């Protein structure tokens, strides 16, 4: 018995040593991805796993520039017609060829499959035409500046038509794409395992043999796994854990600006609860904003790690309007504005907050700050799903909500600010802002487009104050010092190309 135990112990030890030399990477994810079908998937963590399985027509780099992946290039034949040239000799994991027909099939699937979540991203497509096996022409209904950026995410992922036909709606339980790794197994809520695909078109850039995505929801435990060597990398750590990781000589921290933002949405026109002083008077919302010190808030809740902001587009994005900065806190002015508005103070306002410890804390800090200006801020903490439903129904006065962000500025603005925007929960509506948002959507010149966004922020945020942008989060990735070659791209996706374990 004892000898058998010893044998088992030796075997375990042997395996551990072997694992240390093999290029097997274990990454800790903070939640379990949903279905691994690029057409049906919705979660952010799912995109991290897709980066290993499914290559896209285009990708973005750390400067947020669009670079070719399965495509080799593109030309706009006219503002509505995009010609994409494809890489030669690319194979799917099942050995099938990745060609123009497969691209047409995948785009068609994204557009027309029942329950597709990609439809809204690429519904500007009017027709897709296979020119030859390596060329495809996409015709749009109207010129669209954000269109190309949609092909850098799940809408640009190309699936094997043969496997997709065979798998049907269950394709996502065994996805077959043209990425650097192929699917091995998934144990729900535990792990997803992928292994190197030897015939990958860019095999020279791949040094890892096997990647295991381990789902660990508790951030303390995720970090403990990294510290004890049970993981080589974690998707994200909390800002207050950063000092501890920095002190550990065997670990490295990598930080980049996230694409999204945290903001306070005001209910201005969504049902009965919009009929409050703060919902109806932009001066009162201005007072509320002037009472908040974003830098102090960031210092208290996030160790000063996040980036205070006044607009939805982060500084890393080329469309960030550099001159549009948060106004300094001014409690005197805030009090004066409330007097001008003729409301009796303390003015009662209710803010809905999704039930996360850090957001609760942020809510409490805001509560203390605006109290000095004459607001009686009540915090209504709600479980996330319930808070979303309440917001959609208009059952809120103010709502502290985050957006994960998109590469193109349209994805951070139109849906939330345009009067027909599907996520404009507060029902803000200004015809001039609508016109400018539509113009920015079709403006091909980057400089002019940025100017348009500057004008939109000026009206929607400084004049109408329909929303308060507070901060941009950061992607904080931690990994063992043995891991080399990781590039932190602002979209938070872990790209395995070029990564290796020493």
């Amino acid at each position: 018995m004892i000898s058998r135990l010893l044998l088992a112990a030796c075997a375990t030890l042997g395996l551990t040593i072997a694992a240390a030399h093999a290029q097997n990477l274990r990454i800790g994810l903070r939640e379990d991805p949903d279905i691994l079908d690029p057409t049906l998937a919705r979660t952010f963590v799912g995109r991290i796993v897709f980066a290993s399985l499914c290559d896209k027509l285009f990708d973005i780099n750390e400067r947020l520039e669009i670079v070719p992946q399965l495509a080799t290039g593109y030309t706009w034949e006219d503002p509505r017609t995009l010609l994409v040239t494809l890489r030669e000799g690319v194979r799917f994991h099942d050995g099938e060829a990745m060609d123009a027909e497969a691209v047409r099939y995948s785009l068609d699937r994204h557009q027309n499959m029942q329950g597709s979540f990609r439809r809204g991203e690429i519904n500007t497509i009017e027709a897709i035409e296979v020119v030859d096996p390596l060329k495809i022409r996409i015709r749009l209904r109207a010129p669209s500046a954000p269109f190309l950026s949609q092909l850098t995410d799940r809408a640009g992922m190309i699936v094997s038509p043969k496997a997709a036909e065979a798998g049907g709606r269950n394709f996502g339980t065994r996805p077959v794409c043209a990425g650097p790794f192929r699917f091995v197994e998934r144990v729900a809520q535990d792990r997803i395992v992928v292994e190197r695909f030897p015939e990958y078109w860019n095999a020279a850039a791949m040094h890892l043999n096997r990647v295991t995505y381990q789902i660990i929801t508790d951030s303390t435990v995720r970090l403990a796994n990294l510290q004890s060597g049970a993981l080589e990398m974690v998707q994200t750590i909390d800002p207050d854990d950063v000092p501890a990781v920095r002190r550990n000589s065997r670990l490295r921290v990598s930080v980049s600006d996230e694409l999204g933002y945290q903001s306070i949405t005001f209910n201005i026109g969504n049902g009965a609860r919009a009929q409050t002083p703060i919902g109806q008077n932009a001066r009162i919302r201005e007072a509320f904003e002037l009472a908040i010190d974003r830098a102090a808030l960031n210092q208290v809740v996030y160790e000063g790690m996040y980036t205070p902001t006044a607009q939805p587009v982060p500084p890393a994005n080329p469309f960030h309007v550099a001159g549009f900065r948060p106004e300094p806190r001014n409690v005197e002015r805030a009090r004066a504005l409330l007097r001008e508005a003729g409301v009796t103070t303390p003015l009662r306002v209710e803010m809905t907050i999704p039930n996360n410890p850090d957001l609760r804390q942020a809510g409490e800090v805001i509560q203390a700050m605006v109290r000095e200006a004459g607001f009686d801020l009540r915090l209504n903490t709600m479980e996330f799903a319930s808070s979303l439903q309440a917001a959609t129904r208009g059952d809120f006065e103010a709502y502290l909500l985050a957006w994960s962000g998109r590469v193109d500025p349209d994805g951070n603005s139109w849906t939330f600010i345009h009067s027909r925007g599907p996520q404009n929960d507060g029902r803000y509506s200004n015809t001039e802002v609508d016109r400018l948002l539509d113009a920015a959507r079709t403006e091909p010149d980057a400089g002019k487009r940025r100017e348009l966004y500057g004008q939109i922020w000026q009206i929607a945020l400084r004049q109408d104050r329909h929303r308060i942008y507070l901060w941009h989060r950061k992607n904080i990735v931690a990994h063992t010092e043995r891991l080399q070659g990781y590039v932190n791209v602002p979209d938070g996706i872990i790209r395995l190309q070029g990564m290796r374990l020493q």
Partner: protein
Amino acid sequence: MWGFLLRRLGQVIPTLIIVSILVFALQQLMPGDPALILAGEERGDPEVLAQIRAELMLDQPLVNQYLHWIWRALQGDLGFSWRIRLPVGELILEKLPVTFQLAAMSFVIGVAIGVPCGVLSAVWRDRPADWVINAIALFGISTPNFWLGIMMILLFSVQLGWLPPSGYVPLWEDPLMSLQTTIMPAFVLGTGVASVLMRHTRAAMLGALSQDYVRTARAKGLGERVVVAKHALRNALIPVVTLGTIEFGRLLAGAVLTEQIFSIPGFGKLVVDAVFNRDYPVVQGVVMATALIFVTLSLIADLLYMAINPRLRTA
């Protein structure tokens, strides 16, 4: 005996039907529209929402949804998880052995500590040993599992490096590794069970030790050991068995927090994630499976009474 068994089995079916109706009804009371959750960041698109509702039958009257579900369930089809599209039956079968192993280990730890401590503290009533055992039991009941769990991870995994901090390896894949991954969560859960069992064993033993038959046994000149083990303990065990099966059922229903801390992919994690994602088929399936487990366990408890106490066999 057989008549009793049949009667008990006859009660099982109505119980399960009532549970199934309750789960269905309670879910409707839960705020948060599942279609909104499933739509994620596409939640503003009414077309997407309508499509999801149609696909999942959410646009149909509640009675239709229930009848459809129960009809399929009776044929052994519990439906698909809305979130990851795996069959619910498969998910339950995948998680059940994990939770069973964890529950069994915790239960063994709990009984091995709880029952002897309870007996000893009753026998040594109001002596220093009794006080110490009681203090430890109080500590065991009042320590939150998540705190004890994280402290153990920090000590045994991060500081000492003896055990893996979290995760799970199936018993049949690598028994040693499997024990290593489950020993900490089992201990955390086991201490809770031990404390409860200890308190109840002590109370039941004190009751039994003051009974006439114990005095008679002592008067017959039996040794104290025999009196305690054969006469008092056997009678004291009946409430403890009831409690033990309830505790075991509780463990099987999923040790939600502990599984979350140690990333054990078991029942508790399954149902909590399903509730937060409004993944109704998974919630329904897991609750039904849990109800079935509880009903079975209480049946086993009744059979155990008869084994322990022959007086009940005629009933």
